[in-house]
Every structure is written in structure tokens, then in C-alpha cells.
């Protein structure tokens, strides 16, 4: 007791000798010490403690969620999952810990390396899942090998990354809401997933823009230009950062070694974003190569449907979106919402992924970052979330414990929200 008071007295600036003198009589001064402790004293007290007591520290990139934010996240997750359910998607829960090799195959070496890794009892390398798609693709090829197609699966799961991709993406634990349509190819399957994404964003009342691209455009041009791996990454970097001048001098420096036909479109990729006119311009520049023109025509068919259902204001063609394409084989899309400085989700077609697990089949899907979306909604969205002490909750009257708990059980059985005093 004396020690507690010494600490409390210390944080509000009373000299160390004083508390003992105060102890016997002056209850008023002690009460004052308490008051100071509870307001401005607490911060100083906690700070002093952290210097010697690391338990109060939270590892970088991790955090608590509570109160209104926790309720909002729950409500957003429920709303999104109900949209997935409405389109016939079944929830799947994947292991949080899996073999590192799974993610290396599923995401590629560079992305998988960002995961938290540790070893199993037999020495095999494990990882805390850095994504969910890898495990879903493996399940499709193994667990659901005999199930009828297409498979429609969705999930809400936390993923973990040890290293962030950028400063704005510093979190190490992110909750992903995603869906995967496996065993269905073509633009119709692509559109199904695009429209689910649009419905989710509309349901959440967010102003959004979804950019669409096709992996075949850049990959086809890189093949025509016969770019070596390092050159391909340079070109990708220049296009991805929209460095139009840098891209043109890069292409000029490579000279015309028989790949000249690919150059007119390649040099414009950094600035080709917009609506239908972008596709028209790209098609005019593309020389009649099966892969590039095919990719552009597929995008055009997708765009046609987007226009037909009147969503072209919320969508945009972005041929310069070429980062992290290795995963994708067809449609690629990214989701931006008003109020967020970085993209909040994305997806696309990855027809080669399941082949890594033994059975190649078409697949398309997307994920939404619950954390990023909730942050936007928390700062001022129209998406409703109930308050902590809403009208329907009422206190249980005083009485003996037996009476109180009987009343509490009866009222709970009627579905009322109660709060014990």
C-alpha cells in the first residue's frame, strides 16, 4: 500500500518523503493524489514503466481494435460476406500456419519472402499465412478435386507480413475479405467477380473506382521485345511509376532489333489510362500479334458489358498498371476508394496458379483489405454501425443475485440487450 502511494505521489510531483507523512491523517491530500494520477499522472506513469517493462510495447505493425472501430469492422465484414453469400459463394477457412513452400508456389518467391517464417518439429519451413489464395488454390486442386465446377469460395481471414511493401502499407496483420471463382474461364467469370466487387463497395456506401487491365498486354509486349529478366523489370518499373519519358528513352536505348512493331504501343503504356478511347488507341497501336491484340480485345468485351450495365463511371481502363503481374494470366484489377491514399483491394485471373498444385484450371478472384476500408468508413462514411449503448440495452434492476440473474436470463431469452450494473 505504502509503495503504491509512493508511486502515485511521485507521478504528481510530491516529494518521496511526503507520502509517509500523509498516510495517517490527511485523506484529502491522498484523494488529490488519486485524482491527479487518474488524469495527467497516468501517462507519465505508463511512460516510466515502458522504460523498464517491455510488456506494454506492441510489436511494430500490430495493433488493437476496440470500441466503435471493432464494431464497425465486424459490421463491414458481415456486410461483405453477405454479398459473397448472395452470389452463391461458400465460406472456407484455411490454416493460419502452413508450409512456406505453399506460399512460395502460390505467390512467387518475392512476395512469400515477406512472411513470418519458422520451422516445424520435423525441420520443415512453416509460415504464418501471407495470403489466403494459395491455400484456396491448393484445396481446389486436392481437397475439392472431385467436386463439381465451378467452385465458388469466399473467406474472411487475417494475413501476416513481416515486411511492408511501402510506407503507407505498414501493417503486418491485415484482414482480407475475398472470393475465388475456380473452374470458370472467360469474360463472364471475370465480370461476375468485378460486379461482386462493385456491389460490395456500393453496399458500404464508398465512392470507388476499379481499374482494369489485362496481364497479356505487358507480358505480350515484353515477349515481342525479347526483354531479358532485368530489362523486363526496368520496363515494368518505368511503366508502373508512369515515367513516360524514362520509358521512351529506355526503349530508344535498346534500339530496333527486329522488335520494332511492339514499340509504338509499348512506349505509350505509361500514359494509357481512361475509358473506351484508351482501348481504341491501344488497338490502333498494337500490331496484329495474337497475344497483345487478343488481350486488348478481351478487355474490350469486358468493357462493353460494363458500359451496357451503366457502370463505366466507376471503372477505368489502366494499361499502365503492371506491378505484380506475375501471378495473373488475364484480367487484373485494382480497387481505389475516396478517402484512402492507397489501393484497398484488387484481383484478377490466375489460370496457372492451380497448376502449381497439380491440376491446371481457370480461376479468378479478388480481395478487399478490411483494415483500409474500415479506416475510411471510420473517418466519415455513411455505412451505419450501432453504438455501444443503444436504446435497446437497459440495466437490470437491483435485487438479490438470484433475482437479478433470473431476470437477466429471462430477458436474454427474449433477445433483449441488457447490461448488468
Amino acid at each position, binding site marked *: 500500500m505504502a509503495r503504491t502511494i509512493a508511486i502515485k505521489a511521485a507521478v504528481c510531483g510530491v516529494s518521496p518523503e511526503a507520502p509517509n507523512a500523509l498516510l495517517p491523517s490527511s485523506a484529502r491530500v491522498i484523494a488529490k493524489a488519486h485524482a491527479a494520477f487518474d488524469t495527467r499522472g497516468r501517462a507519465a506513469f505508463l511512460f516510466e514503466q515502458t522504460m523498464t517493462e517491455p510488456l506494454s510495447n506492441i510489436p511494430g505493425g500490430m495493433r488493437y481494435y476496440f470500441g466503435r472501430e471493432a464494431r464497425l469492422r465486424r459490421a463491414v465484414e458481415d456486410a461483405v460476406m453477405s454479398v459473397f453469400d448472395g452470389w452463391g459463394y461458400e465460406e472456407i477457412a484455411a490454416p493460419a500456419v502452413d508450409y512456406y513452400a505453399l506460399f512460395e508456389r502460390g505467390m512467387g518467391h518475392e512476395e512469400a519472402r515477406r512472411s513470418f517464417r519458422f520451422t516445424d518439429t520435423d525441420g520443415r519451413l512453416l509460415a504464418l499465412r501471407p495470403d489466403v489464395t494459395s491455400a484456396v488454390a491448393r484445396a481446389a486442386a486436392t481437397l475439392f478435386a472431385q467436386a463439381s465446377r465451378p467452385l465458388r469460395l469466399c473467406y474472411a481471414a487475417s494475413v501476416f507480413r513481416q515486411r511492408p511493401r511501402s*510506407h*503507407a502499407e505498414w501493417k503486418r496483420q491485415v484482414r482480407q475479405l475475398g472470393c475465388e471463382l475456380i473452374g470458370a474461364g472467360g469474360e463472364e467469370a471475370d465480370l461476375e467477380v468485378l460486379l461482386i466487387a462493385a456491389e460490395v463497395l456500393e453496399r458500404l456506401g464508398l465512392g470507388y473506382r476499379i481499374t482494369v487491365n489485362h496481364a497479356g498486354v505487358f507480358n505480350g509486349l515484353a515477349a515481342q521485345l525479347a526483354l531479358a529478366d532485368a530489362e523486363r523489370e526496368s520496363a515494368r518499373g518505368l511503366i508502373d511509376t*508512369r515515367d513516360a519519358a524514362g520509358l521512351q528513352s529506355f526503349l530508344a536505348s535498346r534500339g530496333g532489333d527486329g522488335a520494332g512493331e511492339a514499340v509504338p504501343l509499348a512506349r505509350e503504356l505509361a500514359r494509357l*489510362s481512361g475509358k473506351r478511347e484508351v482501348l481504341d488507341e491501344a488497338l490502333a497501336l498494337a500490331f496484329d500479334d495474337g497475344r497483345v491484340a487478343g488481350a486488348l480485345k478481351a478487355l474490350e468485351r469486358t468493357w462493353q458489358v460494363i458500359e451496357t450495365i451503366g457502370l463505366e463511371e466507376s471503372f477505368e481502363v489502366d494499361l499502365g498498371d503492371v506491378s505484380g503481374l506475375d501471378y495473373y494470366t488475364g484480367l487484373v484489377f485494382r480497387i*481505389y476508394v475516396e478517402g484512402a*491514399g492507397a489501393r484497398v483491394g484488387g484481383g484478377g485471373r490466375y489460370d496457372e496458379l492451380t497448376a502449381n498444385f497439380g491440376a491446371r484450371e481457370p480461376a479468378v478472384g479478388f480481395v478487399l483489405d478490411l483494415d483500409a476500408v474500415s479506416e475510411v468508413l471510420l473517418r466519415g462514411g455513411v455505412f451505419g454501425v450501432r453504438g455501444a449503448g443503444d436504446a435497446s440495452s437497459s440495466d437490470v434492476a437491483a435485487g438479490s443475485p438470484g433475482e437479478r440473474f433470473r431476470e437477466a436470463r429471462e430477458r436474454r431469452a427474449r433477445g433483449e440487450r441488457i447490461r448488468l450494473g
Partner: protein
Amino acid sequence: MLTIAIAKGRMQHDALELLGRAGVRVSEEALRSRRLAVEDEEGRYRFIFVKPQDVPVYVEHGIADCGVVGRDVLLETGADVLQPLDLRIGCCRLAVAARKGLKVEEAGMLHVATKYPRVAAAHFGSRGVPVEIIGLSGSVELAPVLGLADCIVDLVETGRTLAENELEVVETITESTARLVVNRASYQLKSAAVASLVAAVSGAVNKGREES
């Protein structure tokens, strides 16, 4: 309205002058004030003036939609931002400089003092030279003079400061100029406003180039 972050100091004047030629003007009065956020005369843009290394931070988080900052800063911070335009102002180079007569091959483990630890580590790492990077925040030229480091990696504009401290450029790592940078989300969500800014500034850059 677009928010544009401008790097304070070295290139601030040139950047505002270039934007002025592109039709984006801030009144003299607003510039003379000590306010850190001012609007242009037509109320289409808001400018914020921050330290160069903070420009990519504001833009990456989307607090500023666009920014004007040197390529040196972008390389060092590794910021994930779009860089649609080379403004061709603030020309300088990132270089390795050492005391006259230093033989790099004979130094064994090189001690490198710099404000650009990432650039320096990547440069020496790419050639397999073992180095110890000593991070400083200013007056880097002093380090080799006093024996803290064998050489420095720093921005060289005219080379005068180097010469006055009896240092010379050993090699140029890369050239640097000011870039117009854009936040990834703003590029999509405010595409019309960003596109018109990029077009106007691009026109001013090219015009300036033809005249010079």
C-alpha cells in the same frame, strides 16, 4: 482541389516558377506569409511546403495528391509513388567523393559518410565492395576531412563545397532532377484534375527546353 507538396529549399523557387509558367500561380503575398499551406490564385490547388524527404511521405499517404521532389530523395526513401514527369530543374548528381589521392581499392573496408544510406549501400553492394555506412544529417563533407570516413556519398551541384574541402568526385552514381510525383489513388480517383496538371506542367517543361 489538388494538394501539391513542394520540397522546401534548393528547388522551391524553380518549382514555383515552373508551375507559374504552367498557369498555376501563387500570389507573392501568400508566399511571403509564414503559412505552410497556401492556395493558388484560382483556388484549384493547395500547396504545402515541407522538407524534401517528407514530400514522398505526404504523397504516398495521399495527404498530398502530387508533389515536387528530387529524384535523389525518391531513390533514398524508396517511396511507392507515380513519377509521370521529369521537371528538368534542380539538376545535380549523386556522387561518391573522397580526399584527393585516396585509392579506393586499397582502403580495405570503406567507411562511407552520407545522408543517403540506402543509395550508398545499394551502390557499393552492387559491386561487392565492403562498406560501413555512417549516417549523417548534414555537413557530410566534414567527415573525410576529420577522418570519420574515407569517402562520402552526397548530392553534387557545382562541386564548389567539395573543392573547398579538398574533396573530389570519384564517381557519379546517378543524375538527379526534380520530379512531379503523384499518389496512386489520386491518379485514379482525381484522374481528370491530375491529367490536366500533368499536361500543363509538361507543356511548360518542354517550352522551357526549346527556349534554352
